[in-house]
């Protein structure tokens, strides 16, 4: 049996498969459907300082090999999260990573400060990249300087591992990753959704309330892999790969390209056990290829084609 555990700064994952924020609720929703303890970790739905109502419908539209969403960060807010959601997550034998959203740098810091004294949080992931809620029309991680500044502000408020989630909607994602590293983030996760649009030609209306939304699903996997490759080649920081992972093979593509762990997103909607199955498929692959530790695979992409 290959060693599947992964170390990211002080964050230890028993295997490299996480479920992505916004695609797994607060964990409990799937408790009756799957073995949550099989996962390397659960990344919660984004938590903001105050509860957020979310966007009006329609919030999702199905597309070939993917979907467009504009949920609008609907969440219970940090207080209710601590009281109502965190105790269940703590009862699990898997890493708990709290994803944090904010519309200002100060909000990010305030949420982290509120969570600092709560036990059972293994890391924070900063959502600098939601395409559907933004300040001044820009996602934070579209700007390297903003990324550096907000990361540094949060860094000063916590010793817990800090993961910065990056948007692909930029010219050079590696420069934003570099900014996160320079502000002492422990890892970057990429990619969040691609900004997309779908049109109903009969009504001549956009098929989602905010006109554009976030495109996810297997259709975006090649884009995600290219972004992971760019960061892996240019920045020395642990990468968590995200984007259209549906099975073990997809997850392995990310790991070979340079990700030390992965997040499963939209696949959870179709099969809440997708993450668990992917862990099994990675283990099988390692056995077949006589790989003793998953670390051997990380960034093992060969230069020649």
């Amino acid at each position, binding site marked *: 049996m290959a060693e599947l555990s992964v170390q990211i700064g002080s964050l230890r994952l028993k295997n490299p498969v996480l479920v992505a924020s*916004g*695609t*797994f*609720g607060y964990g409990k*929703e*799937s408790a009756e*459907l*799957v073995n949550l303890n099989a996962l390397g970790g659960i990344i919660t*739905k984004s938590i903001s300082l105050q*509860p957020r*109502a*979310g966007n*009006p*419908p*329609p*919030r*999702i*539209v*199905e*597309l*070939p*090999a*993917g*979907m467009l*969403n504009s*949920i609008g960060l*609907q969440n219970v807010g940090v207080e209710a999260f601590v009281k109502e959601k965190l105790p269940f997550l703590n009862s699990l034998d898997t890493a708990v990573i709290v994803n944090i959203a904010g519309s200002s740098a100060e909000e990010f810091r305030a949420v982290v400060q509120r969570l600092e004294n709560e036990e059972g949080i293994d890391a924070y992931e900063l959502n600098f990249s939601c395409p559907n809620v933004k300040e001044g029309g820009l996602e934070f991680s579209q700007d390297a300087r903003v990324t550096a500044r907000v990361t540094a502000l949060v860094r000063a408020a916590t010793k817990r591992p800090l993961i910065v989630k990056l948007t692909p909607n930029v010219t050079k994602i590696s420069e934003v990753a570099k900014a996160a590293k320079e502000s002492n983030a422990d890892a970057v996760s990429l990619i969040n959704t691609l900004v997309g649009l779908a049109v109903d030609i009969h009504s001549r209306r956009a098929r989602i309330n905010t006109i554009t939304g976030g495109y996810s*699903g*297997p*259709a975006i996997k090649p884009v995600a892999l290219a972004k992971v490759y760019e960061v892996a080649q240019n920045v020395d920081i642990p990468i968590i790969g995200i984007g259209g992972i*549906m*099975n*073990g*093979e997809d997850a392995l593509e990310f790991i070979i390209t340079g990700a030390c762990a992965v997040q499963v997103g*939209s*696949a*959870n*909607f*179709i*099969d*809440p*056990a*997708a993450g*668990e*199955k*992917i862990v099994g*498929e990675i283990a*099988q*692959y390692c056995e*077949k290829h006589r790989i003793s530790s998953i670390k051997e695979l990380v960034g093992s992409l060969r230069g020649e084609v």
Partner: protein
Amino acid sequence: MAARTTAFNKGTLDCPVLSVKNLVGQIYLMRMHCPAIAQQVLPGQFINIKVNNEFIPFLRKPFSVCRREAQKGWIEVVWKIVGKGTQIMANDHAGESIHVLGPLGKGYRIDSGLRHALLVAGGLGVAPLPFLCEELLKHRKPVEIFLGAKSRCELSFVEEFQEMGVQVSVATEDGSVGKKGLVTELLTERLAQHPALKNGTFFGCGPAGLLNRMTQISEELKMECQIAIETMMGCGFGICVGCPVRVRNPQAGENPYKLTCVDGPVFDAREVLLDG
């Protein structure tokens, strides 16, 4: 690794298809062997179906359980061909299997004090009503059915209800069967003729226009009204938060949206506000 394995074969249920039948026009009925669901499901609950192992269509789609036979272990769903997924299901055959997740959602409530059940559907909104009707009859509740459709080829289950021994009134917009007009007109006429029915409860399913009119009638007459609504859904079990329905009078601090998949699909008509 073997040929590309998709993520949704295990964990959810792989149910053998027992039969696929064309009921009328583009409307189809599938019976599948699914004992776990057949035994647990409540009227108004739904299952979420993935029609193939491909990425097109990408998501599962919700279907009301139309009828079930707990002992024999089968359930039925009914649908109209509207796109790729429903076309694929219409082409399925006995012996093939289909990926099912369920039962999901909250169904209709059958209160012990219920006097008369007035079941009202528009078009394919009929889907959850045969199962509901059977359960109401088991509870020895008097049931009447009101079915509306655009035309004859959008109308299904009339004979099945008649065979259950309940009164069925039909309205079609083109007048090809039953009364020409809207089903809610039949309903108001019937209530005017038989005021005793005003002690009853409405159970509705169908387009927002129909459900809004039923809600309005129920409020005027101070009747109970439960409605099953349909929205686009991503997952069907509360994790994607993609199926909001507006809460009618949200309390201060309460989220102004409920989720169709876990808070519904059946709601008390006074709880929610439908567009349309």
